[in-house]
């Protein structure tokens, strides 16, 4: 009987509750919760650096040639370095570690009802490799020539020849940092997938797994299947830079387009790699705060499978004007437009979940709803860009930039805040201040739209992405366009200021907030059946699962929620 097995496991679980020394608890932990915090805090520090870079180059665009307060003068090379590393940091050092590695680590073992990852030491190693990669990236800002400035896509020959990029070591350290990070996430990813496959609580079937866990695992599988060619590509690029091979150099028989294929074969699934965890987190939050069953659990899951599958056959829409065969472009237009169908279906499922629910507008719910709204704009403008005829005009303009910020900002920043405000009571055992949370929400969401909506218009006006001073281009140096640039920059500064509210709320709540009950949101999933914060080993008694994760407002029940581990009543 599975009951008997649980009892045996409970007994053995009690014995490894011995106190660990500070070194092993916080510096070299194997506990998934501490490793998760390490990832989340590292990611948040990197987010501050990425935000600071954005501030510096936005100031240059709004007030070209003037000294930027707290930064200094932004020259052309400096500008390239700032935008390149802003992109690199926000994707690889914020979105990936916080959403996948951080929250994945935190919620997977708790939500599937076990005490840790299946490979706790591998987990620790993957964080350490990630930390090393972070240090290498930061080091690259300080070497001779400065940080890499060839855009986060690192197209050769600019990225592979030192005479072109003028950042000899910056470029190589950038490639090294990214490659190390991939290794870290591959190791972490193997851990996540095997944990979810093998360490589920007794009784938890595949279709009882919360969507948040499902989507993180799917994201990891997409990552594992797409990053390989780019790892090979990174090795080739590094050898082009340092040994003098010419894999991507036409002068030696190589092909620069090859890098674009390798990069985007990874780069486009990567969008879905960071998107899926946020979609999962949002699904969990909207069910909890609308007190309704998730509309079409299996449909949501299958649409994610479809999205994942299609994401491997859309990459060349990044290359419509790169010189690929127009006949091939047609194929990629079709697949690109096709991929919006499953995603739209998923969004409709979420909206259907909201329909008729008793919606509570707590801070995490505001973030979740704003994600759906903002991502909608990102998704719809993506269809414009997916059509090759339009893309010829839009390519490399601010329209593209606004489009992908309307996807990545909701994914990374809104998703991160949704997850933090939702799980904060569990992570730190205290409640966050809801009023401050709402002030922070509106102070982020409104300026976010004020930054990026105007950029669509700049793009339509023909503003190219990679220009550091528009005064050099008479057609773009008009006062009208400059006013829009200044408006976007001021909005950015307003948004950055409102982050101080979050930082204050985060740290004050962590130490002085109201004590959180075990299940403050009355949610069903297993992590809420542990004490807040969960002790080493997570559960007092390892749970057995009796039902799916979304049994809210079940008719005939007194309570409007039904925890997954609550035994059915004897009848």
């Amino acid at each position: 009987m599975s009951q008997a097995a649980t009892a045996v496991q409970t007994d053995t679980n009690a014995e490894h509750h011995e106190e660990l020394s500070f070194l092993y608890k916080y510096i070299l932990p194997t506990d998934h919760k501490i490793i998760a915090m390490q990832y989340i805090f590292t990611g948040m520090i990197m987010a501050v650096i990425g935000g600071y870079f954005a501030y510096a180059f936005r100031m240059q665009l709004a007030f070209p040639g003037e000294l930027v307060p707290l930064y200094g003068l932004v020259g052309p090379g400096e500008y390239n370095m700032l935008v390149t590393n802003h992109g690199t940091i926000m994707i690889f050092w914020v979105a990936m570690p916080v959403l996948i590695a951080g929250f994945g680590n935190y919620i997977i073992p708790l939500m599937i009802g076990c005490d840790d990852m299946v490979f706790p030491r591998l987990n620790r190693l993957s964080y350490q490799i990630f930390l090393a990669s972070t240090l290498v990236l930061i080091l690259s800002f300080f070497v001779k020539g400065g940080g890499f400035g060839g855009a986060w896509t690192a197209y050769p020959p600019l990225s592979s020849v030192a005479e072109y990029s003028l950042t000899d070591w910056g470029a190589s350290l950038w490639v090294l940092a990214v490659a190390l990070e991939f290794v870290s996430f591959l190791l972490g990813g193997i851990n996540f997938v095997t944990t979810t496959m093998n360490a589920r609580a007794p009784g938890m079937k595949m279709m009882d797994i919360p969507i948040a866990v499902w989507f993180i695992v799917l994201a990891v599988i997409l990552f594992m299947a797409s990053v390989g060619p780019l790892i090979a590509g990174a090795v080739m690029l590094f050898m082009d830079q340092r040994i003098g091979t010419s894999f991507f150099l036409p002068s030696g028989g190589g092909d620069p387009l090859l890098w674009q294929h390798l990069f985007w074969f990874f780069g486009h699934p990567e969008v879905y790699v960071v998107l899926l965890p946020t979609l999962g987190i949002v699904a969990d939050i909207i069910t909890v705060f609308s007190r309704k069953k998730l509309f079409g659990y299996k449909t949501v899951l299958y649409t994610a499978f479809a999205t994942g599958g299609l994401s491997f056959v859309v990459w060349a829409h990044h290359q419509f004007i790169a010189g690929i065969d127009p006949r091939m472009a047609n194929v990629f237009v079709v697949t690109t437009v096709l991929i919006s169908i499953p995603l739209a279906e998923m969004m409709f499922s979420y909206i259907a979940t909201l329909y008729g629910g008793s919606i509570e507008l707590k801070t995490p719910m505001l973030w979740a709803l704003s994600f759906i709204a903002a991502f909608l704009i990102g998704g719809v403008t993506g269809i414009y860009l997916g059509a090759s005829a339009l893309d010829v005009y839009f390519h490399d303009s601010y329209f593209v930039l606004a489009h992908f910020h309307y996807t990545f900002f909701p994914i990374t920043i809104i998703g991160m805040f949704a997850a933090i405000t939702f799980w904060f009571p569990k992570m730190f055992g205290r409640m966050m201040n809801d009023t401050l949370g709402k002030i922070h929400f509106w102070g982020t969401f409104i300026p976010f739209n004020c930054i990026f909506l105007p950029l669509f218009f700049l793009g339509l006006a023909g503003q190219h992405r990679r220009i550091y001073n528009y005064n050099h281009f008479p057609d773009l140096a008009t006062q009208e366009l400059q006013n829009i640039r200044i408006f976007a920059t001021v909005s950015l500064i307003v948004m950055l200021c409102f982050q101080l509210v979050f930082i204050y709320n985060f740290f004050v709540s962590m130490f002085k907030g109201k004590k959180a009950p075990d299940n403050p949101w009355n949610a069903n999933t297993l992590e809420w059946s542990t004490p807040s914060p969960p002790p080493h080993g997570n559960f007092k008694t390892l749970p057995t699962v009796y039902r799916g994760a979304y049994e809210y407002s079940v008719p005939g029940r007194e309570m409007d929620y039904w925890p997954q581990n609550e035994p059915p009543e004897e009848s």
Partner: protein
Amino acid sequence: MSMHGPIATHRSATGVPTGRLAVWWLMASEIFIFGGLIACFVLFKLNGTPGFEDASLTSLTAGAVNTFVLLTSSLTVVLAHAAIEKGDREKSFLYIWYTIGGGFVFLGVKAYEYTGKIINGHIITENLFWSFYYTMTGLHALHVIGGMVIMALISFDIRKGHNYQRVELIGIYWHFVDLIWIFLFPLLYIANF
């Protein structure tokens, strides 16, 4: 102390041991790394990139010897697994070291080949073919070396009576390394289209 460590490490909801599952996932991600390299190589070759006719300069004999050695070492690792299944640690230890020996012979032949090529001026920067040759065989050789080191560690571990299941895991890995070579050998040594 048989239940040492977190409960998570002992669970098996799929019925497949966690270690084996993880090695399969590792292999899956490795396939994409080598697959990417091999795909690039094939595309360049099909495009008629100059320099790829140098494939005729690689030594078919050396490649064939290495294929034979590597396949044989895969046999010995299977025998090591069979022995440890029966609980025969000493025999398994011996077979693991035969496998490691196979790895040494493979690397020796590789080193001999590399030396000959470099003396004749076929260095990594000569043309795209040699760049791929050294990158692909070099990455493969790194996997061979990694496998040998892990195998040595496992061999001492099982002699003390620990972690018998790891013989199977390194066996899966070794077969994978073998399989990669089965792709590299025809591409770099035989094919001359």
